[in-house]
């Protein structure tokens, strides 16, 4: 196996694993946030407006981590810096 092939295969495997972890964990966290916010809304319907705004902000902040993972994986797949660095002839 040529070294370029090893780097490519490693990149593909790491990308798959990384996107799984990087989307599953924020999804779990967002589910938890939504669950707690809904419980709060059911208990105190008069606070629903404030809770909804806070929920949206925290959802956005939580989702940012997933977006970071997605961007890094996109860079790894479409513009792999390791291949450019170690095998400039490619």
């Amino acid at each position, binding site marked *: 196996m040529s070294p370029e092939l090893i780097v490519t295969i490693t990149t593909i495997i790491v990308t798959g694993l990384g996107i799984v972890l990087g989307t599953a964990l924020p999804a779990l966290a967002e589910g938890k946030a939504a669950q707690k916010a809904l419980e709060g809304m059911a208990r105190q319907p008069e606070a629903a407006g*404030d809770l909804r705004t806070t929920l949206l902000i925290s959802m*956005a902040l939580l989702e*940012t981590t997933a977006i970071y993972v*997605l961007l890094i994986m*996109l860079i790894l797949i479409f513009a792999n810096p390791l291949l450019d660095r170690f095998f400039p002839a490619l």
Partner: protein
Amino acid sequence: MDFVTPQVVFTIWGMPITNTVTSTWIIMVIMIFLAWLLGRKKPIALEMIVDFITDLLGSTMGVEATPYVPFIGTFFLFIAGANVLGLIPGVENPTKDLNTTAALAITVFFSVYYFGIRSQGLVGYLKSLAKPIIILLPFELIGHFTRALSLTLRLFGNVISIELIVAIIFSLLPYFLPSVMALYGAATGLIQAYIFTILAATYIGAGVVTTEELVKRKLAAA
């Protein structure tokens, strides 16, 4: 990737103009025309939009929101308009270009200092930066930079992911389904515009204080 990366259309004195920039111009023209038309024909619709943004900012920032409505409201209208008008064929969504979102986030980054200094004065704002103890000042400044970075990447990442999904579905099944996904992308873009607005309001609101608070501080100092 050619679907989603911005393409250079023409150059002015060696400066490349991409299709996202030209789309920004088209969207600016459409939105200015719509604002003019609504102002002539249905001013009450414009009032509803301004009221909505004022209520949103007021509940988020905790201070009188009127001075900030023109600035932050423009972000909301531009991002929402860009995401909706990006559905028009030939008009690219400008927020799928990292440069556009970076420009928006850098504007927010500097406006935090501008509004903070305008509200509290230079000395008061610097004091409020180093609030509990002076050791925390570097962390506060790092926080400001990461806020700008995360504002950039959040908007860009959300829009580019939907654009990629549309491109992939288009290559698999070019009929009907990509348009549904594009519509879903526009809805996501509206939510992102809302979130960008709320976050910008939170960041700016953290730097400004109410007039009562200022008076209280003056009294405590005297």
